[in-house]
């Protein structure tokens, strides 16, 4: 059992939790994730390691309540315990001195972006962060990310904070302004990662994306998380979750993420009936 030590509400449906999981904290690196299962009847779901504290033995997760499991998790409080919490899984981000890196985070993708921003800054990069969300209340971790960024740009779809527009618009402006960009990281909704990758492909800027296919075990055993990268089938849980955005078949990923929509809706309805 893994105790929730702290819970914070970041925005209406985005929560942060600090979990006691010393073994995971000990090995965690930016870009990796955990699989958790709330209780005996629960589903195993992947969540990115948003932060970790090796000394205190804690791992931070930040999640958006989108369905049964994340909603149920959102009702849990400090002191409650999660049945299973395994990690760190997947390959860590490639942290090097690249030169200038642009870090694009969309919505709940901002959370997993944060430790990568921090590590890339520590590695001596010039870090430009672009954070975007549908509206102001869905933005998060701006201060934390700003602390490790040389420049930060904020945008919202509705203009409620920062410039009005999409993260890709901001990136386009940077490119147009002649900024020399060595690597772009894009973490967020699949469609955002696709748009960013399509944009940078034109300019030949290397782009790393973090994929979020449906997972079951998270250890390479089931193939549920398979994604097509450069025409080859890869398992995101062991080969990823980060891949070269120019090679990913995003359309297939979007379709595969729809595999259980009806069942997910049904499970959510039942949860609502229980008043959660």
């Amino acid at each position, binding site marked *: 059992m893994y105790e929730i030590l702290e819970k914070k509400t970041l925005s209406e449906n985005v929560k942060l939790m600090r979990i006691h999981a010393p073994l995971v904290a000990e090995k965690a690196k930016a870009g990796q994730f955990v699989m958790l299962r709330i209780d005996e009847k629960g589903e195993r779901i992947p969540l990115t390691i948003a932060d970790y504290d090796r000394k205190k033995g804690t791992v931070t997760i930040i999640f958006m309540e989108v369905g049964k499991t994340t909603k149920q998790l959102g009702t849990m409080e400090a002191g409650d315990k999660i049945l299973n919490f395994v*990690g*760190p899984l997947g390959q860590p981000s490639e942290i090097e001195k690249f030169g200038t890196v642009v870090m694009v985070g969309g919505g709940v993708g901002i959370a997993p972006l944060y430790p990568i921003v921090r590590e890339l800054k520590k590695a001596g990069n010039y870090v430009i962060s672009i954070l975007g969300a549908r509206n102001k209340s869905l933005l998060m971790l701006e201060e934390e990310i700003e602390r490790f960024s040389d420049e930060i740009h904020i945008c919202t779809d509705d203009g409620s904070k920062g410039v009005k527009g999409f993260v890709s618009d901001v990136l386009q402006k940077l490119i147009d302004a002649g900024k020399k960009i060595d690597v772009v990281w894009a973490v967020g909704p699949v469609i955002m990662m696709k748009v960013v990758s399509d944009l940078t492909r034109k300019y030949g800027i290397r782009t790393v994306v973090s994929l979020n296919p449906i997972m079951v*075990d998270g250890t*390479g055993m089931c193939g549920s998380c398979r994604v097509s990268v450069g025409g080859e*089938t890869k398992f995101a849980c062991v080969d990823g979750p980060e891949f070269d955005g120019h090679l990913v078949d995003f359309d297939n990923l979007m379709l595969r993420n729809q*595999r259980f929509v009806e069942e997910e809706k049904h499970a959510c309805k039942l949860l609502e009936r229980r008043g959660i």
Partner: protein
Amino acid sequence: MGVKKEKHKMPEQPPEERIHNFNEVPLGYPVEVAVEEAKRCLQCKNRPCTKGCPVEIDIPDFIKKIAEGDFDKAVEVLKTKTSLPAVCGRVCPYENQCEGQCTLLKVGEPVAIGRLERFLADYERMKGVKPPKIPESTGKKVAIIGAGPAGLTCAGDLAKMGHSVTIFEALHAPGGVLMYGIPEFRLPKEIVKSEVDYIEKLGVEIKYDIVVGKTITIEELRREYDAVFIGTGAGLPRFLNIPGENLNGVYSANEFLTRVNMMKAYLFPEYDTPIKIGKTVATFGAGNVAMDCARTALRLGAKKSLIIYRRSEKEMPARAEEIEHAKEEGIEFKLLTNPVEFIGDEKGVLKAVKCIKMKLGEPDETGRCRPVPIPGSEFTLDIDTALIAIGQSPNPLISQTMKNLKVGKHGNIVTDENGRTNIPGVFAGGDIATGAATVILAMGAGKRAARAIDEYLKSK
């Protein structure tokens, strides 16, 4: 007095009933039948059956005790050699092993060794398992990676020798394939649990949620433990590598069975993990895994469940009993047929599979006839779900994170017959060493490795 030529039949759930539930299919021998069956045994002096058993169970001895009605003693004999009798009595391919060597085969059917083993294990469980004697501690510590049959057996044996044993398991449940692969109707999970309980009562500790190579490295384990056994299995699913394989509706056997068995998707929405099953389900492959998939699909409500296999019936690798059960349940077999492409609709959902007819050619290196496609024989079948059950490879995680460990060309860890790897103090066995095989071979490997580990610990 002549011996009855056939095995005594085991009562079973009738097919039309069982395809609507997940309860076990064979119901086990009643006491009188077990005793009668045991009496068929000739007590051969040269004990050929014993040689057919990878864990060398003293078959004539336990059968004799059943014939005498001394079931407690029979259990004792059985348990000196196997720690998972209820499992083997259900899933062992005994027709090729112990029963395949039985003298009675010369005149008819062999003694039903597997069924008798199952009878005893069930008898013991009903009665309440006697807590095992825990020997004096040797003070030596062994780490076991993976709680599948290989790891559990190795752990049980080492504990019986007085060593302190900890198992590190990646998933949240023990049993490996016994838990996530083999379905409830063939191997009830309660049985796996009670066999695991017994091993825990021997003092073995199981730590879950630990992916060795990620959460903790083998090097770290080696620092803390006197020896390490790797029993991580062959969990990596193989795909057909044909167009359309990533369409929605195409699952690996592992994903399908894990969702249903370990995550209990057949009880969705009471359990959170979903599964979707169409009207027509095609399973590709013809081993035990394929039979499990096809039969599970029926129980989840498929109207039609097909097995598509590129060779002929003779080459099907599944246990005879599984094939028979599948046929009784109305599974359709499309043999000498190979898929070439999955076809989807505009939403990326599987709707058909294009196949080609095959014929058998020359035998290949495994001695089985190589199937060759018949040009121009392509045809399309409408299906909603495809389950790929064409085999698993050893999981590469451990070898990737332990560079100096010797690995064979299929990713299997190379060991000698006693499970020694090229690194002193590091042992391996089961599917990770042999490639996907059987429960009993994995247990045999765990057993031999336990002996080798014991020797190694004593020599240190």
